[in-house]
């Protein structure tokens, strides 16, 4: 029987890197969810043919350098303020596709006010919220979403509500705001989850261009170095600890 060897040629191509991802090596730790999420956003913008119409707003945090990885125009916002920056850009360029890409500290700690009010105004943007329950860039401190008992650089004995308050689910809070048309929680820790997440991103972008109001896409994500685990362990830990508290699925719309 002839040796069945797949030829490496265009006709046989099933999957390749989207041209919207630059060739810059990402500074993220090996296995970090950021890289996978960046890829999905870049792929959806590419598939929608919107590279020339999209403006992104990156936060302060690990993903501050998102502008080095997705080849579109970017504004880098002060910590917590991406939603305000994006509001102005979308109001001034209503036909552009505008989104923010923010971590849990950026969006639900220092930027809580901006995050709630961009949704309350129903700005036609997409808010991507990467919830990995820790401050990665600054070295693993507690985030608003750090789970009870979870050890971080600022909760070395585990998060204790009496000292550090409770983790909170901002997605379910903003789901009640009129201006928000779509709220969903996704993850990228398995191929199946990645496929679902990509569909959610597409839906959110389409909502924003159809003027239906704000779409809020939360990714329950890993920070393996902050959690002091290997990437594979972190994906498993996410399933066993993060997802029960931050269940994935559509919350609104």
């Amino acid at each position, binding site marked *: 029987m002839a040796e069945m060897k797949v030829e490496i040629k265009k006709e046989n191509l099933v999957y390749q890197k989207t041209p919207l991802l630059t060739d810059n090596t990402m500074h993220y*730790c090996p296995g970090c969810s950021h890289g996978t999420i960046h890829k999905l956003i870049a792929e959806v913008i590419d598939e929608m043919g919107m590279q020339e119409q999209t403006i992104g707003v990156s936060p302060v945090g690990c993903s501050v350098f998102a502008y080095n990885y997705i080849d579109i125009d970017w504004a880098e916002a002060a910590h917590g303020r991406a939603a305000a920056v994006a509001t102005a850009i979308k109001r001034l360029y209503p036909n552009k596709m505008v989104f923010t890409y923010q971590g849990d500290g950026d969006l639900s700690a220092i930027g809580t006010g901006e995050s709630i009010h961009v949704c309350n105004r129903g700005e036609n943007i997409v808010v991507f919220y990467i919830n990995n329950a820790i401050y990665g860039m600054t070295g693993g401190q507690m985030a608003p979403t750090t789970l009870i008992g979870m050890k971080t650089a600022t909760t070395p004995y585990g998060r204790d509500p009496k000292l550090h308050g409770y983790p909170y689910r901002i997605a379910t809070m903003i789901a009640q705001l009129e201006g928000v048309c779509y709220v969903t929680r996704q993850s990228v820790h398995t191929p199946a989850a990645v496929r679902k997440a990509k569909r959610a991103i597409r839906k959110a972008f389409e909502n924003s261009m159809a003027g239906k109001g704000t779409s809020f896409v939360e990714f329950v994500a890993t920070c393996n170095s902050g959690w002091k685990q290997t990437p594979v362990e972190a994906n498993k830990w996410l399933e066993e600890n993060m997802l029960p508290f931050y269940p994935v699925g559509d919350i609104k719309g």
Partner: protein
Amino acid sequence: MAKIKGTVVIDTERCKGCEVCVASCPCSVLGLAGEVNSKGYHFATMVNPDDCTGCASCAIICPDTCITVYRQKFD
């Protein structure tokens, strides 16, 4: 009986050896190589190439988008 076979090409310099693809492959095709790339990472490689079906699970989850996937039908 027609048979679908797949294969992957891994950008070994871009790979950080995070092993997420290895854990995500439904057919245990992938593993970490013994050698390391210029950054010292044991990059991912096909340890059971014949079992690859070209489903691209590895490629879509790879955080650094190092994997290109091909698939071919053999009658």
